[in-house]
Every structure is written in structure tokens, then in C-alpha cells.
């Protein structure tokens, strides 16, 4: 019986984040927000951000989804909060490689904090999309901000 393998996917930290997500809710005056659907299931994640002094000053998310998508969104908000734009983009890139099962440096791993525990999702290919949804949304918001600045 392979339920043991479930422990690998559903680590304590993941279950806790899903049960008690951090930064869940709406921001008072977010200028950047994006809702992304997970086409395989119909779930959606909505991410909101406020930028100040070239930093992610505030971040929050809402949405329904599975344990993995909720936990991943929760962890993401904690990791990105307070980061400057360059570091935020870097963190998202590290996470993206981590989740695809590609090697990342110890330093990158440490920078991801709790989110590093999601590395095990790489072994569950059907669930990778659940884990990346919120990060895609955040990445998109960063790009939107950078583009606007550029104009």
C-alpha cells in the first residue's frame, strides 16, 4: 500500500499552511491583482500585491483549491513579502526549477524558506500545476509592474 508516499507529498508544513493559510484575504488598496484558473480542475487563485519603494510591500491571496495549491500560495506570500523586485523574480525562478525537479543551490533552497518543502511535488507530476498556479500569478503581476514603470 502506497499511502506512505502520501506523507511525502502532504508534509506537516503543507497541511498546516493549507489549513491556516497566511495572508489569505484581500488588500485594502491593491493596484495589482490577477485571478488564474487551473484548467484541469476549475480551481482559481487570486493574488493581490502592493508595491512600494521597488519592493513587494503587501501581498495576499484568495481562492479555492486543493491542499497543494492553497499551501503553495500561502508559502509564496510569506516568501515574497518585503522582497525587492529583482529578488522576487529570482525566488520565483528558483521555485519553478525546484518544482520541476531540477537542481537548485543550497542558497536558493534556503532563500525559499518553508516553500522549499514543496520540492516533493516534483514526484507527483499531476500536481505540479496546483503548486505553481499562485507563483505564476505573482510573476505576472511583477511583470505588469515592471512594464508600467518602463512606460
Amino acid at each position, binding site marked *: *500500500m*502506497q*499511502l506512505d*508516499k*502520501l*506523507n511525502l*507529498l*502532504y508534509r*506537516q508544513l503543507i*497541511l498546516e499552511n493549507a*489549513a491556516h493559510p497566511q495572508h489569505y484575504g484581500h488588500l485594502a488598496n491593491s493596484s495589482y491583482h490577477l485571478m488564474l484558473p487551473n484548467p*484541469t*480542475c*476549475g*480551481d482559481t487563485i487570486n493574488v493581490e500585491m502592493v508595491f512600494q519603494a521597488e519592493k513587494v510591500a503587501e501581498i495576499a491571496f484568495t481562492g*479555492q*483549491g*486543493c*491542499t*497543494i495549491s492553497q499551501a503553495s500560495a500561502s508559502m509564496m506570500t510569506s516568501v515574497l513579502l518585503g522582497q525587492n523586485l529583482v529578488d522576487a523574480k529570482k525566488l520565483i525562478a528558483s521555485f519553478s526549477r525546484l518544482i520541476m525537479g531540477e537542481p537548485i543551490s543550497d542558497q536558493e533552497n534556503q532563500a525559499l524558506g518553508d516553500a522549499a518543502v514543496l520540492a516533493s511535488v516534483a514526484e*507527483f507530476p*499531476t*500536481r505540479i500545476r*496546483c503548486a505553481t498556479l499562485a507563483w505564476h500569478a505573482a510573476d505576472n503581476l511583477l511583470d505588469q509592474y515592471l512594464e508600467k514603470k518602463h512606460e
Partner: protein
Amino acid sequence: MDNGLNNSRNDFEIFQQLINGEKLDYLDSAATAQRPVSVLKAVSDFYRHDNANVHRSINTLSSRATDSYEAARDKVAGFIHAVDSQSIVFTRSTTESLNLVARSFGDLVVTAGDEILVSEMEHHSNLIPWQQLAQRKQAKLVYIGLQADGELNMTDLKRKLTSRTKIVAIAQVSNVLGTINPIKEIARLAHEQGAYMVVDGAQAAPHFAVDVQDLDADFYAFSGHKMLAPAGIGVLYGKKALLDQMSPVQFGGEMIDHVDEQSATWAAAPLKFEAGTPNIGGAIGLAAAIDYLQALGMDKIEAYEQDLMAIVLKGLSQIDGLTIYGPLDAAKHASVLAFNLGKLHAHDVATALDLQGIEVRAGDHCAQPLMHYLGISAAVRASFYFYNTRDDVDRLISGLQRTKEFFSNAAR
């Protein structure tokens, strides 16, 4: 241990494998069925011996290919008891069949102010084509509600079915709730109001005998891949008199009569709807699938699946906190069963089952309006076919129990 109806499981090589170290427990036949050896052999035998294009050449191979393709059409006509083969159009899928009706017949008969009746339990494929038709024609898309147990609310249907109704489009079996809808009665009511009856038979034709004449359906759509045939072949049955009036929606080889530089005329139905090279191997595979099903007997399949469903319903209703969507009476519940396990997300449940070799589906099942109606965003769905065994069912029940334990321990 039993091995599916008449030991049929042995005819399906896919069941010999392990999934995540466990014996494969395939409970996703409503998404697509598995294929028996005889179907795969019929298709490859065709390609190995008789392969040529159809309706084109007069050489020996081409005439064999054409004969096989048309024999498949005859077999399909017999399978659903159509008056004759000329009312059978080969398409890619149920989805294409329904789009063809909505586009060609819908555009012909629906005008501004008309109403199109669907139910709250339709699959997107029997919904969006009608939504689009309604938008094109300024017609109104009206939804028939459901009873608490997931059956169609016939009182609501009778109230909404009026002389304004032009088309009634309903699934014979819901792909989520498993509800079996009383098509014959609905067709009678529709015809009384001068409306046409379109039936989405995707989840019905594979599981019990269908008689389109007895139902008095004007159109009936289904997919080969849900009844043992290869993917890429579907069927649209239409009453010949209606098919004759309809315009083709795709144009090209095979479907023409005469072509000038600026105009063209069409062949008779069904060929006018089959532009281009059709899925010849798919049609031949579908004929072999029908042979296989008829050898088992559609009535036997229906009875066997009902027995399985009774066991599942009983087993699942004993799991605390598990919500079943759709009728609780096995006799009213065709081969699909949707549920949620407490507050667990359907995806988490599906992954836990997958790790135990149990392949179910989780999500919105291409029925978002129904999900909204039920007030959920996703559900787990287990679906059965004659090759599923008592053991498959027992494993689902114990698998769910283990899943529940895992998550309640984990969330301590």
C-alpha cells in the same frame, strides 16, 4: 475473485499493469473506456490488409475499404435501432455531433425569441453549442432545474416547455450525477409543443440498449471512445427527413455532387456531412466494439452495472462525512458516481486514490453550471463499466476509508 462480466477483464491488456505499485483499478470509464484486444485487432487488421481511401477510387483496395466503412455505418444503425443507415453520420465525437446539430439544424429552425431548453446537469458539450446558437439568433437558453436527489424536475420541465420552445437538448445520462433522464417522455412532451428533441447519449449508449425510434429522438449523439472504440470517432443519428433539410457545416472532398468555379451542390445525407477523409479505422473499430458489446449483451451489461452500483452506493453511504451527488437508488443511477469526502478537496482525494492504483477523476467534469448549482467547485467521480469487478468496488471503498484516515491523522 470475479473478473468482470463474463471474465471480460481478460480481454483488456491494460489491466495487467501496476499503477504506483498497485493493481490498476480503473474507475474513469466515463471519461474514456478501455479497449479490448478485438477492437485493436480489427483496426490494425484493416490497415494491414485493406487500407485505402473510401468513396474515391474504383480499385480493389478502395472498394474493400468503402465496404468496411459502410458496413460499420450499418452496424451503428442496428445498434441504436435506426430506421436505416442513411441517418447515421460519422463525426469525431459527441461534441462534434452536437455542434453539428446546433450549427446546421439550429441555425435552420431557431429564430429570435425562440427558446432552447437544456437542463442544469448538461455537459459543456451539450450546453455551449446551444448558448452560442442562442446568442447568434437572439433566442433564449432556458434551464430546467433538478430535484434534491439530482433527478430532473419534470414539473419545472413541463412549465418551461411551451410553444416558444424550438429545441430540447438533454443528456440521457448525466456524466456527474448518473441520473437517467426519461427521454421518451420528454420527447413526447417536446413534440406536443412542436419542439425537436436532441439527446446527448454519450453516457447512455455504452451502458444500455438504446432505441432511437422508441425514444422518438430527432437527434442522438454519442462517442465511440466511451464504448470501447478508438478515440476520434463519434456518431450523430438524425431523422432522415431532418438531415435532408440541413446544410453541411464543413466543405471539401467526398461531400459534393457538382462543383463549379462559383457554386457547388451537395451529396445526399449522410455523406454531405462527412467532408474530407473520415476516420476510417475509427469507424471499423467502432463496429468491432459494437460486436463485442452485443456479444456480451447490452441488457446483461446494464444489469451487471446496476449490481455494482448498489454495492458502491451502500459502501460509500457508510463512510462518515461523504456526500454523494445524484440519486441514491441504484436503479436510477447509471454507471457514474460523484461525491466529496468531507471538506477534503477532490484533487487531494484523487491523488490519495491514485497512489493506491485507483484511477478516478476529480474536477468540474466539464459541467461548471452544475457545479455552481450544487454549490461546489469540484467533485470526485468514480465511473464503472462491465469490466470492473466487485474487487474494484471494494478497493474504492477501503481506499476512501484509508484516505480519510490519512488526512484526519495528518491534520491532528
